[in-house]
């Protein structure tokens, strides 16, 4: 095993290239920029292409064109840049293109954007939120597999700390079950035969007059329902006899897990639950984990977004309180005072007590 001290951005780019990603386009923005730099460095070495697009909108457009030819392609930005891409993110979902995209977010306030989206129409993306660089390497590879398997976009939700923290990691190739041929892709060879293809977001078939929007949208809904059934992932500890279950995701969860373990060592009955997929949300698992709990506490670094999904999972079984909140550094990059185990310990203890914001 060869572990290397690597920044998250470098490790994720390396994992993507290892997973067969051969195209990346992006536009610089902190803290996503280093990911773009690493793709620009790594892709030419494997005959891949990395383009400095003129905006995030063109970046996702370029990835769209590359994906249509059957290549594995990715883009990314911060939540701000992804806001510009929303029209494309929704429309290429209906084109059933397997885009992988990164949100190196400025904290956790893009939870709604990641899980609800800001584009038009009914659409869903799998959202993977790694807890550390090691898991980011695995989830990046998983993202490319899931995207191809479902022909659906997959987001990696990271943040400043994930992008910029150096950890000793091994970027090891994961073997996934074989995927079907990309029999839907266009390689330019099918014209003049009557078998040419048109990759489009309205379910149109060549040579057939008219479209069937309702039938097409229902088919996509069925696919998204199947994804929801089978792709939820989570991690939990000490929930069996917990009085309080702390729910957190991404970097925030790393701090929560540390504090929960610390409290457990002291005999305090707290549990820890982390959604690895923000969509589909591991609702059944969370409901089960919180079964005996007196209270469920949500630790997220925003005004309260994931708490909606926690409440929808728990369905009134226990009161759900927020122990997170807005917490920022002066630059607004998302490294707030909340990233401190003593702060989090105090909040979890408060969650255990009577005070707090009951649902």
């Amino acid at each position, binding site marked *: 095993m060869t572990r290397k001290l690597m920044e998250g951005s470098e490790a994720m780019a390396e994992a993507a290239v290892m997973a067969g990603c*051969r*195209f990346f*386009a992006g536009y610089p923005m902190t803290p996503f920029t280093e990911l773009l730099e690493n793709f620009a460095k790594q892709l030419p070495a494997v005959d891949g*292409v990395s*383009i400095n*697009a*003129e*905006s995030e*909108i*063109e*970046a*996702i*457009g*370029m*990835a*769209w*064109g*590359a*994906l*249509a*030819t*059957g*290549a594995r*392609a990715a883009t990314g930005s911060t939540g701000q840049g992804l806001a510009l891409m929303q*029209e*494309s993110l929704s*429309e290429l979902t209906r*084109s059933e293109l397997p885009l992988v995209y990164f949100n190196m977010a400025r904290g956790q306030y893009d939870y709604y954007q990641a899980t609800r989206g800001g584009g038009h129409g009914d659409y869903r993306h799998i959202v993977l939120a790694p807890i550390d660089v090691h898991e980011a390497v695995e989830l990046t590879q998983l993202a490319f597999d899931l995207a191809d398997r479902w022909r659906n976009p997959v987001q990696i939700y990271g943040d400043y700390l994930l992008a910029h923290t150096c950890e000793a990691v091994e970027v090891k190739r994961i073997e996934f079950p074989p995927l079907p041929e990309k029999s839907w892709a*266009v*390689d*330019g*060879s*099918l*014209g*003049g*035969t*009557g078998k*040419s*293809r*048109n*990759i*489009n*977001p*309205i379910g*149109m*078939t*060549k*040579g*057939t*007059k008219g479209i069937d929007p309702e039938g097409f949208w229902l088919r996509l809904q069925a696919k998204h329902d199947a994804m929801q059934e089978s792709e939820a992932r989570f991690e939990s500890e000490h929930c069996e006899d917990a009085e309080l279950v702390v729910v957190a995701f991404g970097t925030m969860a790393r701090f929560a897990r540390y504090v929960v373990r610390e409290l457990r060592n002291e005999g305090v009955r707290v549990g820890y639950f982390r959604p690895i997929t923000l969509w589909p949300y591991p609702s059944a698992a969370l409901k089960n984990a919180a079964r005996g709990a007196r209270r469920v506490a949500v630790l997220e670094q925003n005004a309260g977004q994931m708490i909606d999904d926690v409440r929808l999972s728990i369905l009134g079984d226990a009161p759900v309180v927020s122990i997170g909140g807005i917490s920022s550094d002066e630059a607004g990059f998302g490294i707030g005072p909340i990233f401190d185990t003593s702060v989090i310990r105090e909040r979890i203890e408060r969650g255990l007590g009577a005070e707090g914001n009951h649902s």
Partner: protein
Amino acid sequence: MSERSELVLDTENPPSVPAERIGDIKPALLLSEDHDLCPGCGEPLALRMMLEAIEELAMAQRTIGVVGIGCYTALTSIMDVDLVQALHGRAPSLATGAKRMRPDELIFTLQGDGDMVNEGLQEVIHAAARGESITCVLLNNGVFGETGGHMTATTVIGQRTKNTIEGRNAEYHGHPILIAEMLAQLGGAAYVARCGVYNAGEIARTKRVLKKAFQTQIDGKGFSFVEILTMCPTGWFIPTQEGPDYLDNVLGAVHKLGELKAPSEETD
């Protein structure tokens, strides 16, 4: 910039090939001759010339088209080449990604003036400046035809549309963008031409121009651009039969036909 070419009839020599009736010829890359566009529309003509150009260059099985959104989008179901449907304005970036992954294929975009010059202007400019080895084809009728005749960035001064009822007024609505002239200035643009499908000579020239643009890409000489002025009598609010003259006298007077830039000295 060359002056607009005049149609010259050679009455001295007999034609080298016998005459054929256009209605008897079905382009090989058209799955059906039916379309639902308005009578007098120029877009099916432009499309036909484009498909014939691809066919004559023997590129039918080496081509990927990226299509924007406008009336012409309805024709994608009958175009027998591989296609990708883009969002409104976004075809050049998709074409860029496709070309970078498939450098040996002929990659073109098909866009209208609302698509390319309004919503997606930055896309085509950057693609040209990068010298992206793609061919962007603009069908310019100076109006949003699909929505029922509204002003675009190429609508000429004085032109009446549904939201410039008394005619486009420069002081109030601003000036039209001459996109071919803009693109011709960019270093990465190798071939830039404007033609129109309003008479037999210009229709034939449109195909020659398209072939030169595609050839520019095939030869790896850089970005190529063909603007085709097309009739839209419905969106111009004129009788169908007046479309060709309106194109010539109104749109063509501002968006002047001709070859603006070519890789060699040889111009059409």
